[in-house]
């Protein structure tokens, strides 16, 4: 394989990933309900949730609903796995553990998923969500996800 065709193959992979991500964001009604978007840097995805009034759980602070933080991080894990493991159908959640570290303020929320292990059937993923400062996460999630080959 020449350097040129290798570069071409890489470019196609990046395009395929972007297509898959766009298709996921468009196809999952709940991702649209939340108002989620995402950006790719190679195979690493940053999920983005712009602030919107319908995400508020505490009007007095105001703060994002705890369910929104959990939901956004779970969706981040599912999407990152879908991009990393394109041969599998959309992963199904087995369990998630959510740690709430700080109130989610009325600001854009970001999340990145770290795929710790992909086995034959199960993937272990850790997610962190932050707002203005990456080093001060708002919440974290650890979860297991069931992988099934597409068509099964």
């Amino acid at each position, binding site marked *: 394989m020449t350097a040129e065709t290798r570069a071409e193959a890489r470019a196609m992979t990046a395009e395929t990933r972007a297509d898959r991500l766009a298709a996921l964001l468009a*196809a*999952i*009604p*709940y991702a*649209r*309900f*939340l108002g989620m978007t995402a950006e790719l840097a190679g195979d690493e995805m940053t999920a983005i949730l712009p602030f919107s*009034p*319908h*995400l*508020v*759980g*505490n*009007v*007095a602070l105001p703060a*994002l*609903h*705890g*369910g*929104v933080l*959990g*939901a*956004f991080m*779970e*969706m981040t894990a*599912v999407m990152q796995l879908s991009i990393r493991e394109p041969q599998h*159908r*959309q992963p*199904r*959640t*087995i*369990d*998630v*553990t*959510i*740690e*709430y570290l700080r*109130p989610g303020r009325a600001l854009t929320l970001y999340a990145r998923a770290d795929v710790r292990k992909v086995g*034959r*059937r*199960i993937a272990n993923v850790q997610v962190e969500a932050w707002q203005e400062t990456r080093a001060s996460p708002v919440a974290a999630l650890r979860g*297991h996800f069931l992988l*099934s*080959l597409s*068509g*099964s």
Partner: protein
Amino acid sequence: MKVDLEALVALGARMVEMTPHAAALGLKFVSVEAGVGVLKVPYRDDLVGDPQTGVLAGGVITALLDHACGLAVKAAAFDTDPTATLDLRIDYMRPAAPRRDVIARAHCYRLTHTFEDDPDDPIATAQAAFVRAGAAPRPAP
């Protein structure tokens, strides 16, 4: 502020109507009793998380459980003080059925730090999920 059960019922209804995200999800108040809160999320197409199966997104279940747990804490304390969730662990026992409402019943079983020697008053609880080595992956349908 200390309140009675009647006020908790009113609070439960307010918690789903006045919380923007709960209202956006369409959460409904079902019931409240001492230490227990029950809420419901009616099925809606725009809350689906997996278009292939049509079941509600895990995040909807997370938000429902979080909200129901908050109500259970208020129902255990008989007060209306706001609560903040420290952590939440969710194990999916089976997929929710498509086009069905989901009901959550939250039970607050520990409220204080006081400790007495009592079998009904455990010092620790654990939850875990296991993979059985012998269990084959489910065959394709």
